[in-house]
């Protein structure tokens, strides 16, 4: 199948893995839409979201990923993905190199919703876009590929939408899982294709490592979902907004609590299917 991949920055290991793995599976990766890191709108968004210190940290991580890569194994988020790249014989460490090696066209855009991005999808005859990051998508973008936009969410849907979904699931005592779904305008509310468990044990090496394992599993789930879509065997399951909640970025003090629970091996016991938010007056 002819696919396109999106990504948020030039050294996204997740997107690099996605491009290579889709190509290895026999798909034609025709296009990669990469969002420019240093755009005014993006800088403003992150400054508001993270504050100056967080913004600087994010910027340094994005511009100098080798710093993170030089950290000892198991100490941060990128390690599992680097291991994954090595396992699959993927040598590229930036998007341009990945695109060159699979023969994909790389387009750098200010936003995925720019006319140039949408135009490129139509011109290259891409059937499906696999979302590998890059921001919130407009309806026009979502309508451009005939088979839509695929994303794998890092938490169990429909219960845990939004940010840090894996961490929130752990926080509520639910075993982490990820969900492949078709993207719609409303955040993480698109029809789900399947859910895949993430071993709880991977979180025992710390939250950052757990996140890294999730990112690796997301790539595999994306690849599996593209195969299902290609075969026509995908069975989308509609979500109801009331079946879950949209979560924000988890505040650091709650992450500290989570770290403590993990250290004490208070592992979650509920499967996503067993968990439901008790109806609160907020949901009414």
């Amino acid at each position, binding site marked *: 199948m002819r696919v396109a991949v999106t990504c948020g920055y030039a050294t996204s290991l997740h997107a690099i893995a996605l491009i290579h793995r889709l190509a290895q599976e026999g798909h034609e990766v025709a296009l990669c839409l990469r969002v420019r890191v240093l755009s005014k709108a993006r800088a403003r968004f992150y400054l508001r979201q993270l504050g100056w210190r967080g913004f600087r940290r994010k910027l340094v991580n994005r511009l100098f990923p080798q710093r993170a890569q030089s950290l000892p194994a198991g100490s941060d988020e990128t390690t599992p993905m680097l291991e994954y790249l090595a396992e699959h014989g993927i040598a590229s460490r930036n998007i341009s190199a990945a695109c060159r090696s699979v023969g994909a066209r790389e387009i750098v855009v200010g936003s995925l919703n720019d006319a140039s991005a949408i135009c490129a999808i139509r011109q290259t005859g891409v059937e499906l876009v696999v979302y590998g990051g890059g921001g919130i998508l407009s309806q026009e973008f979502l309508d451009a590929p005939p088979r839509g936009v695929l994303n794998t969410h890092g938490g169990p849907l429909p219960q845990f939408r939004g940010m840090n979904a894996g961490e929130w699931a752990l926080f509520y005592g639910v075993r982490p899982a990820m969900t492949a779904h078709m993207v719609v305008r409303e955040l993480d509310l698109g029809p789900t294709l399947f859910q895949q468990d993430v071993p709880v044990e991977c979180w025992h090496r710390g939250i950052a490592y757990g996140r890294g394992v999730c990112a690796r599993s997301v790539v595999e789930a994306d690849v599996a979902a593209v195969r299902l879509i290609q075969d026509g065997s995908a069975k989308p399951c509609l979500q109801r907004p009331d079946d879950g909640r949209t*979560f924000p970025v*988890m*505040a650091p*003090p709650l992450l500290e609590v989570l770290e403590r629970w993990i250290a004490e091996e208070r592992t979650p016991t509920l499967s996503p299917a067993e968990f439901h938010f008790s109806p609160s*007056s*907020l949901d*009414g």
Partner: protein
Amino acid sequence: MTPAHPTPFQQLLVERADLGVSFLVRAIEACGGQGAATFYSRFYCPLRGWFWPYPETTGYIIPTLLEYAAFANRPELAQLAVRQADWILTLQYENGALPGGHVAHGQKRPASIFNTGQMILGLVAAADHTRDEKYLNSAIQAAQWLAGEVDETEGTWTRHGFSSEKKPSYYTRVCWPMLEVWARTRDDSIRTAAVRVLDTIRGWQLPSGGFTGWMFETGKAGYTHTVAYVLRGFLESARLLGEAGKPFEQAAYRCADALRRRMELRGRLAGAYHGDLRGVYWYTCLTGNCQIALNWMIIYERTGDARFLSAAFKALQFVIERQKVRPLDPNLRGAIAGSSPIWGRYLTLRYPNWAPKFFVDACLMAHRLLGNLLEQGPCGSPSPAVTQPVFMPSR
């Protein structure tokens, strides 16, 4: 209930709450132990720095000092708190009312609806702590005066106001202390009056979730300080009213949730909000941050929705980063400015006593909730917690 191994954030909360209390103690000592100085500012008071004592906030500092005294095992703070209640007793008018504004040269100002309510909180807390009836009797007199002043036609108070806003929605925070008195006396005339006002103000809720009249000046945006007053009044009144208070709780949840979403999208709270929840973002009202964090934590306790707890920690962290820890002026140690930046519109260039008051309340509550989480483990889908007034020592 201090966990054996507090998290780094819990340790930070304890350190910063202690600093906040040290500022409150200095504010009281600056007035000879008779009330807490309204604010500290070398710009407004170049010689002394401290402004005259402010009975209203001294009133609600009492429960904070009592709670912190129990938390930190510092009985001298409880004694200081009770002395403030004694000072408030000396200010009461014969009809039960308590004065507005500050007290300069021993001269008290005319009666004020809002300020009377806030001082009742202090009197009730002192009564609970000492079991001395004089404080409760004083609170009863004050609450009866408030009940008698409700305008039957308007369904709220129309006299003895503070600001140009004739019908403030933050009067919900007067209903709460009245209901605290009702909870201890079962005087139904007080309950009826309070519920009447709460019903009226609930009717002012806008489709956005915001309320009309939550500002000091008509037509302007309301500081998060007064926005949080409205919410707290509803939340605490609902707690005291039980099933009958559900509609008020709902009104507060709606508004608090809308504010939470805005904060998450924008990354921080605005300094002030219009009724339609358009924010004024060029400054932040620091005391408002602490108060809204408290409201969110209360909602988390009642609903188990951890998104509110997360939001509360973010709002509180914003203030922690701006508390004066090692200032050149030793009087400012532990102080929190009215606004960030300090030239912001709320209490420009001043360090009010109520900013550390709400900060300490928020730190203690956050500490307790984190302790509960550490003990209980993953929260699952928690059942509604038994809620207590924040000022009641719960340890």
